[in-house]
Protein backbone atom coordinates (compact mmCIF):
# COMPACT_ATOMS: atom_id res chain seq x y z
CA UNK A 1 0.00 0.00 0.00
CA UNK A 2 2.80 2.39 0.95
CA UNK A 3 4.53 1.57 -2.32
CA UNK A 4 1.42 2.56 -4.28
CA UNK A 5 1.04 5.83 -2.38
CA UNK A 6 4.71 6.62 -2.98
CA UNK A 7 4.33 6.06 -6.69
CA UNK A 8 1.08 7.99 -6.91
CA UNK A 9 2.54 11.03 -5.17
CA UNK A 10 5.85 10.88 -6.90
CA UNK A 11 7.05 14.22 -8.33
CA UNK A 12 7.95 12.60 -11.59
CA UNK A 13 4.64 10.83 -11.98
CA UNK A 14 4.28 12.19 -15.52
CA UNK A 15 7.19 9.96 -16.48
CA UNK A 16 5.31 6.82 -15.50
CA UNK A 17 5.56 4.06 -18.04
CA UNK A 18 3.58 0.89 -18.68
CA UNK A 19 5.63 -1.04 -16.16
CA UNK A 20 4.63 1.31 -13.36
CA UNK A 21 0.98 0.94 -14.33
CA UNK A 22 1.31 -2.81 -14.32
CA UNK A 23 3.00 -2.75 -10.91
CA UNK A 24 0.25 -0.55 -9.46
CA UNK A 25 -2.41 -2.81 -10.93
CA UNK A 26 -0.87 -5.94 -9.45
CA UNK A 27 -0.38 -4.32 -6.02
CA UNK A 28 -3.92 -2.98 -6.03
CA UNK A 29 -5.28 -6.40 -6.91
CA UNK A 30 -3.25 -7.95 -4.09
CA UNK A 31 -4.39 -5.36 -1.55
CA UNK A 32 -8.02 -5.52 -2.64
CA UNK A 33 -8.11 -9.32 -2.68
CA UNK A 34 -6.62 -9.33 0.82
CA UNK A 35 -9.11 -6.81 2.19
CA UNK A 36 -12.26 -7.79 0.31
CA UNK A 37 -11.89 -11.54 0.16
CA UNK A 38 -14.84 -13.58 1.40
CA UNK A 39 -12.45 -15.23 3.86
CA UNK A 40 -11.30 -11.89 5.29
CA UNK A 41 -11.84 -11.59 9.00
CA UNK A 42 -14.10 -8.54 8.92
CA UNK A 43 -16.27 -10.16 6.22
CA UNK A 44 -16.63 -13.32 8.28
CA UNK A 45 -17.52 -11.28 11.36
CA UNK A 46 -20.22 -9.47 9.40
CA UNK A 47 -21.60 -12.63 7.82
CA UNK A 48 -22.00 -14.19 11.27
CA UNK A 49 -24.65 -11.60 12.14
CA UNK A 50 -26.17 -10.88 8.73
CA UNK A 51 -28.82 -13.35 7.52
CA UNK A 52 -28.99 -11.67 4.10
CA UNK A 53 -25.27 -12.18 3.43
CA UNK A 54 -25.52 -15.69 4.81
CA UNK A 55 -28.23 -16.47 2.28
CA UNK A 56 -26.20 -14.94 -0.54
CA UNK A 57 -23.03 -16.80 0.36
CA UNK A 58 -24.98 -20.03 0.73
CA UNK A 59 -26.44 -19.48 -2.73
CA UNK A 60 -23.04 -18.83 -4.29
CA UNK A 61 -21.68 -21.90 -2.52
CA UNK A 62 -24.54 -23.93 -3.94
CA UNK A 63 -23.80 -22.70 -7.48
CA UNK A 64 -20.12 -23.55 -7.09
CA UNK A 65 -21.01 -26.97 -5.75
CA UNK A 66 -23.41 -27.60 -8.62
CA UNK A 67 -20.78 -26.50 -11.14
CA UNK A 68 -18.21 -28.84 -9.67
CA UNK A 69 -20.81 -31.63 -9.66
CA UNK A 70 -21.49 -31.04 -13.35
CA UNK A 71 -17.76 -31.04 -14.05
CA UNK A 72 -16.99 -34.14 -12.04
CA UNK A 73 -19.57 -36.43 -13.64
CA UNK A 74 -17.62 -38.65 -16.03
CA UNK A 75 -18.91 -39.77 -19.42
CA UNK A 76 -18.25 -43.00 -21.30
CA UNK A 77 -14.81 -43.16 -22.87
CA UNK A 78 -16.29 -43.85 -26.31
CA UNK A 79 -18.52 -40.76 -26.32
CA UNK A 80 -16.17 -38.78 -28.57
CA UNK A 81 -15.98 -41.73 -30.94
CA UNK A 82 -19.77 -42.00 -31.14
CA UNK A 83 -20.25 -38.25 -31.49
CA UNK A 84 -17.66 -38.09 -34.28
CA UNK A 85 -19.24 -41.04 -36.09
CA UNK A 86 -22.68 -39.48 -35.90
CA UNK A 87 -21.42 -36.07 -37.05
CA UNK A 88 -19.35 -37.51 -39.92
CA UNK A 89 -22.42 -39.47 -41.02
CA UNK A 90 -24.19 -36.28 -42.08
CA UNK A 91 -21.22 -34.79 -43.95
CA UNK A 92 -20.62 -35.15 -47.68
CA UNK A 93 -19.77 -38.56 -49.06
CA UNK A 94 -16.31 -37.49 -50.18
CA UNK A 95 -15.51 -36.24 -46.67
CA UNK A 96 -16.86 -39.39 -45.07
CA UNK A 97 -14.45 -41.52 -47.09
CA UNK A 98 -11.35 -39.56 -46.16
CA UNK A 99 -8.66 -41.27 -44.03
CA UNK A 100 -8.96 -38.45 -41.51
CA UNK A 101 -12.64 -39.29 -41.04
CA UNK A 102 -11.71 -42.91 -40.37
CA UNK A 103 -9.25 -41.74 -37.75
CA UNK A 104 -11.89 -39.53 -36.12
CA UNK A 105 -14.33 -42.42 -35.92
CA UNK A 106 -11.94 -44.21 -33.57
CA UNK A 107 -10.68 -41.17 -31.66
CA UNK A 108 -10.62 -41.27 -27.89
CA UNK A 109 -10.19 -38.20 -25.69
CA UNK A 110 -6.59 -37.69 -24.66
CA UNK A 111 -5.38 -35.38 -21.92
CA UNK A 112 -3.63 -32.20 -23.05
CA UNK A 113 0.16 -32.09 -23.18
CA UNK A 114 0.22 -29.72 -20.19
CA UNK A 115 -1.99 -32.13 -18.21
CA UNK A 116 0.17 -35.08 -19.21
CA UNK A 117 3.32 -33.27 -18.18
CA UNK A 118 1.88 -31.95 -14.93
CA UNK A 119 2.99 -35.09 -13.04
CA UNK A 120 6.59 -34.31 -13.99
CA UNK A 121 6.38 -30.74 -12.73
CA UNK A 122 7.81 -31.47 -9.28
CA UNK A 123 10.74 -33.69 -10.36
CA UNK A 124 11.65 -31.26 -13.15
CA UNK A 125 11.58 -28.34 -10.70
CA UNK A 126 13.75 -30.30 -8.27
CA UNK A 127 16.28 -31.17 -10.96
CA UNK A 128 16.36 -27.55 -12.16
CA UNK A 129 16.92 -26.37 -8.59
CA UNK A 130 19.75 -28.88 -8.14
CA UNK A 131 21.39 -27.78 -11.38
CA UNK A 132 21.10 -24.14 -10.34
CA UNK A 133 22.65 -24.89 -6.94
CA UNK A 134 25.48 -26.88 -8.55
CA UNK A 135 26.11 -24.08 -11.03
CA UNK A 136 26.19 -21.48 -8.29
CA UNK A 137 28.47 -23.67 -6.19
CA UNK A 138 30.80 -24.20 -9.12
CA UNK A 139 30.92 -20.49 -9.89
CA UNK A 140 31.49 -19.73 -6.21
CA UNK A 141 34.25 -22.33 -5.81
CA UNK A 142 36.14 -21.19 -8.90
CA UNK A 143 35.90 -17.53 -8.05
CA UNK A 144 37.06 -18.29 -4.49
CA UNK A 145 39.99 -20.35 -5.83
CA UNK A 146 40.98 -17.54 -8.18
CA UNK A 147 40.78 -15.02 -5.37
CA UNK A 148 42.81 -17.29 -3.09
CA UNK A 149 45.48 -17.74 -5.79
CA UNK A 150 45.82 -14.02 -6.48
CA UNK A 151 45.99 -13.18 -2.79
CA UNK A 152 48.60 -15.90 -2.21
CA UNK A 153 50.68 -14.62 -5.12
CA UNK A 154 50.55 -11.09 -3.73
CA UNK A 155 51.63 -12.25 -0.28
CA UNK A 156 54.52 -14.26 -1.73
CA UNK A 157 55.66 -11.33 -3.83
CA UNK A 158 55.53 -9.08 -0.77
CA UNK A 159 57.67 -11.60 1.12
CA UNK A 160 60.28 -11.69 -1.66
CA UNK A 161 60.32 -7.90 -1.97
CA UNK A 162 61.02 -7.51 1.73
CA UNK A 163 63.79 -10.16 1.73
CA UNK A 164 65.57 -10.07 -1.66
CA UNK A 165 64.60 -6.71 -3.06
CA UNK A 166 62.27 -5.37 -5.79
CA UNK A 167 64.52 -6.03 -8.77
CA UNK A 168 65.17 -9.67 -8.05
CA UNK A 169 61.52 -10.26 -7.22
CA UNK A 170 60.49 -8.82 -10.56
CA UNK A 171 62.93 -11.17 -12.27
CA UNK A 172 61.57 -14.18 -10.38
CA UNK A 173 57.90 -13.37 -10.99
CA UNK A 174 58.22 -12.45 -14.64
CA UNK A 175 59.91 -15.77 -15.44
Amino acid at each position, binding site marked *: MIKIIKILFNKHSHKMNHNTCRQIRSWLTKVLSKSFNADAEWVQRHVMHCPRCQRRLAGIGKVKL*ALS*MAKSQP*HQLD*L*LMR*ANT*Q*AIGVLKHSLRKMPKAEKLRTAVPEPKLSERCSKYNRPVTNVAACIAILFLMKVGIFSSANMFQSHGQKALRQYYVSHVGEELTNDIFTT
Partner: protein
Amino acid sequence: MFAESVGYELWGELAGLSAMEASQKWILSAMQRHGPELVRMLWRILGNEQDVCDAYQSTFLQLAHYQGRQKPKHVKAYLFRTASNTAISMLRHRAAEKRTLSKATNNAEATQPHVNEIDCKFLAETLRRYVAQLPEHLRDVITLRDLAELSYAEVGRLLGISPATARVYRCKAVQLLAIWMNK
Protein backbone atom coordinates in the same frame (compact mmCIF):
# COMPACT_ATOMS: atom_id res chain seq x y z
CA MET B 1 -17.77 -24.76 -81.26
CA PHE B 2 -20.84 -25.19 -79.05
CA ALA B 3 -19.74 -28.67 -77.92
CA GLU B 4 -16.33 -27.27 -77.07
CA SER B 5 -17.77 -24.50 -74.90
CA VAL B 6 -20.06 -26.99 -73.07
CA GLY B 7 -17.03 -29.18 -72.45
CA TYR B 8 -15.12 -26.27 -70.93
CA GLU B 9 -18.09 -25.42 -68.70
CA LEU B 10 -18.29 -29.00 -67.49
CA TRP B 11 -14.60 -29.03 -66.72
CA GLY B 12 -14.99 -25.74 -64.88
CA GLU B 13 -17.86 -27.11 -62.77
CA LEU B 14 -15.94 -30.27 -61.98
CA ALA B 15 -12.89 -28.27 -60.97
CA GLY B 16 -15.07 -26.08 -58.77
CA LEU B 17 -16.64 -29.10 -57.10
CA SER B 18 -13.29 -30.73 -56.39
CA ALA B 19 -11.99 -27.45 -55.01
CA MET B 20 -15.01 -27.21 -52.73
CA GLU B 21 -14.46 -30.78 -51.54
CA ALA B 22 -10.85 -30.01 -50.82
CA SER B 23 -11.82 -26.81 -49.06
CA GLN B 24 -14.31 -28.68 -46.87
CA LYS B 25 -11.48 -30.73 -45.39
CA TRP B 26 -11.16 -28.04 -42.73
CA ILE B 27 -14.36 -29.38 -41.15
CA LEU B 28 -12.59 -32.63 -40.31
CA SER B 29 -9.58 -30.70 -39.07
CA ALA B 30 -11.84 -28.60 -36.86
CA MET B 31 -13.47 -31.76 -35.57
CA GLN B 32 -10.10 -33.25 -34.76
CA ARG B 33 -8.86 -30.08 -33.09
CA HIS B 34 -11.89 -28.95 -31.11
CA GLY B 35 -13.96 -32.16 -30.89
CA PRO B 36 -12.79 -33.37 -27.46
CA GLU B 37 -13.33 -29.93 -25.87
CA LEU B 38 -16.74 -29.61 -27.51
CA VAL B 39 -17.86 -33.03 -26.33
CA ARG B 40 -16.71 -32.22 -22.81
CA MET B 41 -18.60 -28.93 -22.78
CA LEU B 42 -21.75 -30.49 -24.25
CA TRP B 43 -21.63 -33.31 -21.74
CA ARG B 44 -21.41 -30.82 -18.89
CA ILE B 45 -24.30 -28.76 -20.24
CA LEU B 46 -26.56 -31.64 -21.18
CA GLY B 47 -25.56 -34.55 -18.96
CA ASN B 48 -26.97 -37.04 -21.44
CA GLU B 49 -24.82 -38.91 -23.96
CA GLN B 50 -27.40 -39.20 -26.74
CA ASP B 51 -28.18 -35.50 -26.47
CA VAL B 52 -24.45 -34.76 -26.64
CA CYS B 53 -24.13 -36.73 -29.87
CA ASP B 54 -27.18 -34.97 -31.35
CA ALA B 55 -25.96 -31.49 -30.40
CA TYR B 56 -22.48 -32.30 -31.74
CA GLN B 57 -23.92 -33.53 -35.02
CA SER B 58 -26.13 -30.48 -35.35
CA THR B 59 -23.18 -28.17 -34.67
CA PHE B 60 -21.04 -29.68 -37.42
CA LEU B 61 -23.97 -29.79 -39.81
CA GLN B 62 -24.47 -26.06 -39.29
CA LEU B 63 -20.74 -25.51 -39.75
CA ALA B 64 -20.78 -27.44 -43.03
CA HIS B 65 -23.65 -25.31 -44.34
CA TYR B 66 -22.40 -21.98 -43.02
CA GLN B 67 -23.08 -19.25 -45.62
CA GLY B 68 -22.92 -21.38 -48.74
CA ARG B 69 -20.41 -23.87 -47.38
CA GLN B 70 -17.82 -21.24 -46.57
CA LYS B 71 -15.32 -21.38 -43.76
CA PRO B 72 -16.21 -19.00 -40.89
CA LYS B 73 -13.58 -16.47 -39.93
CA HIS B 74 -13.25 -17.82 -36.40
CA VAL B 75 -14.03 -21.54 -36.54
CA LYS B 76 -13.50 -22.16 -32.82
CA ALA B 77 -15.79 -19.28 -31.82
CA TYR B 78 -18.45 -20.43 -34.26
CA LEU B 79 -18.25 -24.03 -33.06
CA PHE B 80 -18.41 -23.24 -29.36
CA ARG B 81 -21.21 -20.72 -29.65
CA THR B 82 -23.27 -22.93 -31.95
CA ALA B 83 -22.75 -25.96 -29.74
CA SER B 84 -23.64 -24.00 -26.62
CA ASN B 85 -26.79 -22.54 -28.23
CA THR B 86 -27.87 -25.92 -29.55
CA ALA B 87 -27.37 -27.52 -26.14
CA ILE B 88 -29.27 -24.75 -24.37
CA SER B 89 -32.21 -25.03 -26.74
CA MET B 90 -32.20 -28.79 -26.15
CA LEU B 91 -32.23 -28.17 -22.40
CA ARG B 92 -35.17 -25.79 -22.76
CA HIS B 93 -37.00 -28.31 -24.91
CA ARG B 94 -36.31 -30.98 -22.32
CA ALA B 95 -37.58 -28.76 -19.50
CA ALA B 96 -40.74 -27.94 -21.44
CA GLU B 97 -41.33 -31.63 -22.10
CA LYS B 98 -40.85 -32.40 -18.43
CA ARG B 99 -43.34 -29.72 -17.45
CA THR B 100 -45.93 -31.07 -19.86
CA LEU B 101 -45.35 -34.58 -18.64
CA SER B 102 -45.59 -33.63 -14.98
CA LYS B 103 -48.79 -31.72 -15.67
CA ALA B 104 -50.22 -34.73 -17.44
CA THR B 105 -49.34 -37.19 -14.73
CA ASN B 106 -49.90 -34.62 -11.96
CA ASN B 107 -47.30 -36.39 -9.95
CA ALA B 108 -44.45 -33.91 -9.92
CA GLU B 109 -43.97 -33.80 -6.18
CA ALA B 110 -43.50 -37.52 -5.91
CA THR B 111 -40.78 -37.66 -8.59
CA GLN B 112 -38.84 -34.60 -7.42
CA PRO B 113 -36.38 -35.19 -4.60
CA HIS B 114 -36.48 -33.10 -1.47
CA VAL B 115 -34.84 -29.70 -1.95
CA ASN B 116 -32.66 -29.92 1.15
CA GLU B 117 -31.32 -33.28 0.17
CA ILE B 118 -27.80 -33.11 -1.28
CA ASP B 119 -28.32 -35.01 -4.45
CA CYS B 120 -25.55 -34.55 -7.00
CA LYS B 121 -27.68 -35.23 -10.02
CA PHE B 122 -30.53 -33.08 -8.82
CA LEU B 123 -28.19 -30.20 -8.07
CA ALA B 124 -26.51 -30.44 -11.48
CA GLU B 125 -29.91 -30.69 -13.21
CA THR B 126 -31.19 -27.65 -11.32
CA LEU B 127 -28.11 -25.71 -12.37
CA ARG B 128 -28.59 -26.74 -16.00
CA ARG B 129 -32.22 -25.64 -15.87
CA TYR B 130 -31.29 -22.23 -14.51
CA VAL B 131 -28.33 -21.78 -16.86
CA ALA B 132 -30.79 -22.20 -19.74
CA GLN B 133 -32.83 -19.32 -18.30
CA LEU B 134 -29.91 -16.88 -18.05
CA PRO B 135 -29.68 -13.93 -20.47
CA GLU B 136 -27.61 -14.84 -23.52
CA HIS B 137 -24.50 -12.78 -22.72
CA LEU B 138 -24.25 -14.18 -19.18
CA ARG B 139 -25.04 -17.71 -20.30
CA ASP B 140 -22.34 -17.70 -22.98
CA VAL B 141 -19.71 -16.64 -20.47
CA ILE B 142 -20.66 -19.17 -17.81
CA THR B 143 -20.82 -22.06 -20.28
CA LEU B 144 -17.50 -21.19 -21.90
CA ARG B 145 -15.69 -20.31 -18.69
CA ASP B 146 -17.03 -22.89 -16.25
CA LEU B 147 -18.26 -25.75 -18.39
CA ALA B 148 -15.78 -25.57 -21.27
CA GLU B 149 -13.01 -24.43 -18.88
CA LEU B 150 -11.61 -21.80 -21.22
CA SER B 151 -9.57 -18.92 -19.88
CA TYR B 152 -11.11 -15.45 -19.56
CA ALA B 153 -8.86 -14.24 -22.37
CA GLU B 154 -10.10 -17.00 -24.64
CA VAL B 155 -13.75 -16.46 -23.63
CA GLY B 156 -13.33 -12.77 -24.41
CA ARG B 157 -11.80 -13.56 -27.78
CA LEU B 158 -14.58 -16.02 -28.68
CA LEU B 159 -17.37 -13.68 -27.67
CA GLY B 160 -15.76 -10.48 -28.90
CA ILE B 161 -15.55 -8.87 -25.46
CA SER B 162 -12.65 -7.99 -23.18
CA PRO B 163 -11.49 -10.46 -20.50
CA ALA B 164 -12.52 -7.96 -17.82
CA THR B 165 -16.05 -7.83 -19.22
CA ALA B 166 -16.11 -11.62 -19.27
CA ARG B 167 -15.18 -11.60 -15.56
CA VAL B 168 -17.97 -9.16 -14.77
CA TYR B 169 -20.52 -11.20 -16.74
CA ARG B 170 -19.43 -14.39 -15.00
CA CYS B 171 -19.79 -12.75 -11.61
CA LYS B 172 -23.27 -11.51 -12.51
CA ALA B 173 -24.26 -14.92 -13.81
CA VAL B 174 -23.14 -16.62 -10.59
CA GLN B 175 -25.06 -14.08 -8.50
CA LEU B 176 -28.21 -14.59 -10.55
CA LEU B 177 -27.89 -18.36 -10.38
CA ALA B 178 -27.33 -18.13 -6.62
CA ILE B 179 -30.57 -16.17 -6.18
CA TRP B 180 -32.52 -18.61 -8.32
CA MET B 181 -31.05 -21.67 -6.67
CA ASN B 182 -31.81 -20.32 -3.20
CA LYS B 183 -35.51 -19.96 -3.96
